[in-house]
């Protein structure tokens, strides 16, 4: 028996194999000729079922395959809805409770084995009803049901019955009717002006029953949509490859946009048929360094500049010369989101002592926070409503949103805890990512200057949300990104009827605020509603259930060969608009 010899032989075989691999790998060079868009997502793709599209990464991929009724205009700002699968924007009854939507003719599902002879059939209104029932079906455990929860007549009742096994998909639902194949009628329980927005979310995208029946739970890996691209392959935790869908109903590049879009060359392709690329690749790259390096090598076309590579690439909103020489372009966009520190208003000290919260707010140095953690990429948030959304007001004043330690100390005194004396140690909850942890430390330092001690409890995201749901947290840091461009999406986080386990984790209850919220719900976007939003913001500032921190900005870098790129904070289906200039790519790639 000679084991060492066996070992060495085995190892030699492996070494030989790996060299073989290298030589083979080298012969298979990426051809620059291929009309492909190389994108990266920063987390692993979970799956491709629209009812589970609860994270940005899945949405980014799914948006190319599935299409909801509406979409946002690619270029116009502020954001504007336009029909996608619908043939036109819906018509609403006077009371705002009945909405009729016409669906474009001739839209076909992508070809799939689930259909007879593998040919995708036409999309009908019934598909929407089926898909939304599927979203509501408790067995599917989708966390997207909130978009219809309590809004559509009969849907919640059906959902409850389904839970008890007393209903089926055959059942009629009063609020969801399809009088014919092209018409969809939605009846609401109460006015819901955000309906059109949620009908632009992937949660509401139609899926074919045939495919769901055929694949069952595995439907998650067999997407069948109506979109411009379809799934070619997915190497789990590595990359997704999408190819042009030959049976797509088509679309044209927009011919108008925001001011200045023309000058930026964003209208060159106006009126041309979409999409421009044959293939879209989403590489799943979690770590910043490989994503950045791959981008710098031209293996990725578009990247959000990682926090820690920011200093070397951008100064004062300008790209470094080194990067402009390489033909790189920078796009800066204000994101509709807010980061904030929340208090549990049920907490006997934090929740009941307004002066204490004011003191904390005054002791928070937002500018340094912005500098340190966002490289200055953002604006100081004064209220929950971010820029770009109706209700945002540049000149809004939040008197407690200044960094003034002296004032803070005064308030702390008023609160009954001069220099923090008499205060217990608070627990500050956060998630255990490095950045979240460091931000918590930052808060800890800010409060320490005031004499307030906090202990940081860093847990995983689900454990963190559990704590919020169970009302066990005292104070915490969190962020909210818009699901749709309506202030309601932010204000609902403070609505008294939404307390935990609902989205109002701060458990903030203010009668006046709630009344205003309910009033605003009944109003379409209008100056009147904006006034109400303003009043709500005032109440918010008076009560300070949160300390809003920052509205972030996205700094996106893309290569010179990418045309028509414009950052859009809410939609992710931009791939169909983007053109890859292959001549340019061949030239620029040499410089990398």
């Amino acid at each position, binding site marked *: 028996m000679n084991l060492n010899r066996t070992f060495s032989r085995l190892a030699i075989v492996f070494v030989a194999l790996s060299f073989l691999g290298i030589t083979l*790998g080298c012969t298979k060079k990426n051809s620059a000729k291929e009309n492909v868009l190389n994108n990266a997502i920063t987390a692993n793709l979970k799956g491709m079922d629209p009812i589970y599209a609860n994270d940005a990464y899945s949405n980014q991929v799914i948006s190319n395959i599935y299409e909801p009724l509406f979409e946002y205009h690619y270029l116009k700002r502020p954001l504007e809805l336009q029909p996608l699968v619908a043939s036109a924007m819906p018509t609403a009854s006077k009371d705002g409770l009945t909405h009729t939507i016409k669906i474009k003719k001739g839209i076909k599902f992508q070809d799939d084995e689930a259909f007879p002879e593998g040919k995708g059939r036409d999309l009908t209104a019934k598909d929407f009803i089926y898909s939304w029932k599927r979203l509501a079906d408790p067995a599917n455990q989708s966390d997207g049901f909130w978009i219809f929860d309590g809004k559509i007549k009969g849907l919640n009742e059906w959902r409850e019955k389904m839970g008890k096994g007393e209903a089926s998909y055959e059942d009629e639902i009063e609020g969801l009717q399809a009088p014919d194949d092209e018409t969809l009628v939605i009846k609401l329980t109460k006015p819901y002006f955000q309906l059109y927005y949620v009908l632009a979310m992937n949660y509401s995208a139609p899926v074919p029953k045939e495919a769901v029946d055929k694949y069952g739970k595995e439907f998650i890996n067999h997407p069948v949509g109506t979109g411009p691209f379809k799934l070619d392959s997915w190497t789990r*935790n590595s990359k997704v490859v999408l190819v042009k869908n030959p049976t797509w109903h088509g679309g044209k590049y927009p011919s108008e946009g925001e001011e200045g879009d023309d000058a930026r060359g964003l209208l060159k392709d106006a009126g041309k048929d979409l999409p421009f690329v044959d293939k879209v690749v989403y590489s799943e790259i979690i770590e910043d360094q490989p994503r950045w390096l791959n981008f710098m090598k031209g293996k990725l076309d578009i990247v959000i500049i990682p926090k820690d590579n920011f200093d070397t690439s951008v100064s004062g909103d300008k790209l470094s010369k080194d990067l402009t020489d390489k033909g790189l372009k920078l796009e800066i966009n204000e994101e509709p989101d807010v980061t904030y520190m929340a208090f549990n208003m049920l907490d006997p000290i934090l929740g009941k002592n307004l002066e204490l919260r004011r003191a904390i707010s005054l002791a928070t140095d937002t500018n340094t926070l912005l500098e340190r953690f966002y490289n200055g990429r953002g604006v100081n948030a004064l209220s929950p409503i971010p820029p770009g959304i109706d209700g945002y007001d540049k000149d809004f004043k939040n008197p407690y949103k200044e960094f003034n330690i002296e004032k803070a100390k005064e308030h702390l005194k008023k609160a009954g805890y001069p220099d923090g004396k008499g205060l217990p140690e608070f627990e500050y909850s956060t998630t255990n990512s490095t950045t979240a942890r460091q931000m918590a430390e930052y808060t800890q330092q800010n409060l320490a200057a005031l004499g307030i001690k906090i202990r940081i409890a860093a847990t995983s995201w689900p454990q963190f949300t559990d704590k919020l749901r169970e009302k066990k947290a005292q104070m915490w840091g969190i962020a909210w990104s818009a699901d749709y461009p309506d202030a309601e999406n932010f204000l609902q986080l403070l609505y008294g009827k939404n307390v935990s386990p609902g989205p109002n984790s701060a458990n903030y209850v203010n009668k006046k605020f709630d009344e205003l919220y309910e009033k605003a719900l009944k109003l379409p976007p209008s100056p009147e509603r904006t006034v109400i939003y303003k009043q709500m913001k005032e109440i918010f500032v008076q009560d300070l259930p949160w300390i809003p921190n920052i509205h972030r900005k996205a700094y996106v870098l893309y290569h010179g060969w990418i045309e028509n790129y414009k950052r859009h904070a809410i939609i992710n289906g931009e791939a169909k608009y983007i053109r890859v200039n292959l001549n340019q790519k061949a030239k620029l790639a040499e410089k990398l």
Partner: protein
Amino acid sequence: MLKYTIRRILYVIPILFGVTLVCFLLFNVAGGDPAAQAAGKYATVEQIESIRAELGLNQPIYLQYLDYLKQILTFDFGRSWSTKQKISEMFWSGVGPSLSVTVPGFLITLMITIPLSLVLGYLRDSFIDRTAMVVCLALISISSLVYILAGQYFLAYLWGMFPISGWDSSWTGRWEYTTLPILIMVVLSLGGQILFFRTIFIEELSKDYVRTARAKGLSNKKVLTKHILRNALIPIITLVVLQVPFLILGSLLLESFFGIPGLGGLLVTAINNADFPVIKAMIVILTILYTTFNLISDLLYAVVDPKVRLQ
């Protein structure tokens, strides 16, 4: 030998019982309410209740344990809370990539460390040995991040010797992407293994049979490569076998930085998402594998060690 084998295999049964029990208790009893965890962020009380029913959490605890055993036996661990994917498939798709890095890396490391530590053991307490020990300790003290980041930046990005990251599922294509991670893995595991093997060799060097072999007139080289190596291989092989289950787990950092879609990344993602069914399944699978390899290690021990072989 046959009897020994059968006995040893039967001995695995109580161990497996214990192992599954520990995993079960850890997650189902001590780990909080799985239903609430599974329900997600917009969950209502009814939703959580329905999940409880679906997960069988309303049953008495022993029935839950039996269910859990059934899951293991059928290799059907249900679906991930976070991705809704089938856990068994998540697992299988990660095994290949992980092994593609760790197996070659492991073997190459062994080829380097065994002879090297044999020589160091022979030169015990000499200047070379001391220096090598300090170097090895330094090697293992430096965070693996340094090797990974530096390797990726210099070898792959600046000098373009390897792709920066990525994966190709074809058997021939993958080596292009795995070569650098393999290289780094070798460097990473070198220090610890040399220190470890060196101790084993030193132990053997003090045995009486070494004196006998030298009294026969054998050269030092022959004594080392034949007599000592062959004896030291017994503990080494058995220990090496115990490493094999960890090869399947892959290397977390290497995988996430080089885009290798292996199990290391899967486990870490699951931990970050508190994806209990995945963590539970991974631990149980790994543990069963580990138990199996423990068994194999013992049986192999019996094969390579004549003393055990014939009992």
